[in-house]
């Protein structure tokens, strides 16, 4: 019994892992690193690495293709769901996912995400919401909270001139094509455990051909929030999740025809 177990462990070690063993360019404490690992875990546990194709965003995680060992395409800002649609329609047997930030998905890419979701495209979107534009230096995002200070809302976001934080899960939950929609965070070990399960489930929804799945992950951005990593995870728990509550919005049992 012990020998068989050792053999299985050896095989597992030989298996190529999805998470590349490299130093990432992300800031200390950044949520991307955690989520990359959770996505890689899901792909490994489901054994789908060799048939997974990802679409990289424009944003801090533009180099995600250096950190995950799967095929990737890089398309313009916001257009990932359209490219994912093209890939999935051309190769319906493959697993296709987009990984997008709040500028990519909720600003320039609102048409693409809404329509991919509305068509019920059988793809998975991992949406990283850090309430700010990271890569370009900390400007306001559609998801920036009211009164939150950023480099383009230096006096705090004012709803009169800049509107309100955009709630993507709430927005997409009205669409029939959406099969699975949940918001999680990675601000504590307990939340990471939950997020890990949720992300795996999103890929399972795709594998079961149920329709569009999206996981919104509230992610800390210590650098642009001008906070220490510890304070930033506290801010996600204490402040951010008041505007963006962690919950499951949709999980249909329906299988697409």
């Amino acid at each position: 019994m012990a020998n068989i177990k050792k053999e299985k462990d050896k095989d597992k070690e030989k298996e190529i892992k999805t998470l590349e063993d490299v130093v990432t360019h992300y800031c200390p404490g950044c949520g991307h690193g955690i989520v990359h690992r959770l996505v890689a875990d899901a792909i490994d546990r489901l054994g789908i690495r060799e048939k997974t194709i990802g679409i990289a965003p424009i944003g801090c995680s533009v180099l995600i293709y250096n950190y995950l060992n799967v095929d990737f395409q890089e398309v313009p800002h916001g257009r990932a769901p359209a490219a994912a649609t093209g890939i999935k329609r051309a190769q319906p047997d493959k697993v296709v996912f987009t990984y997008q930030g709040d500028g990519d998905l909720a600003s320039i890419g609102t048409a693409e995400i809404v329509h991919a979701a509305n068509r019920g495209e059988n793809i998975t979107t991992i949406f990283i919401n850090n309430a700010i534009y990271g890569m370009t230096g900390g400007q306001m995002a559609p998801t920036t909270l009211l009164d939150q200070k950023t480099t383009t809302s230096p006096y705090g976001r004012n709803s009169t001139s800049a509107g309100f934080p955009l709630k993507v899960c709430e927005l997409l939950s009205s669409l029939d094509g959406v099969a699975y929609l949940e918001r999680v965070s990675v601000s504590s070990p307990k939340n990471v455990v939950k997020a890990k399960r949720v992300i795996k489930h999103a890929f399972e929804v795709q594998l079961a051909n149920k329709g569009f799945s999206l996981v919104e992950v509230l992610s800390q951005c210590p650098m642009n929030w001008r906070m220490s990593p510890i304070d930033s995870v506290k801010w996600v728990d204490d402040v951010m999740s008041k505007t963006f509550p962690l919950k499951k919005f949709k999980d249909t049992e329906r299988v697409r025809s």
Partner: protein
Amino acid sequence: MVKFENKKDKCKGCGLCIEFCPEGVLEFSSELNSVGYYPVKVIDISNCKACKFCELICPDSTIKVFKQ
């Protein structure tokens, strides 16, 4: 027996593992690593209960905790 492995040259010294460790097992090292940060190190492994909170929260996937 708990085995704690961390790739100290991938650690960016964010301190989240130290913050979330319920047993206070971890602290910052006083020696810089090759990427210019003070990485995490174990104070006393005998206090570790292998809860794996550190492994879960690490953004750089440097930590692996084994219960042997």
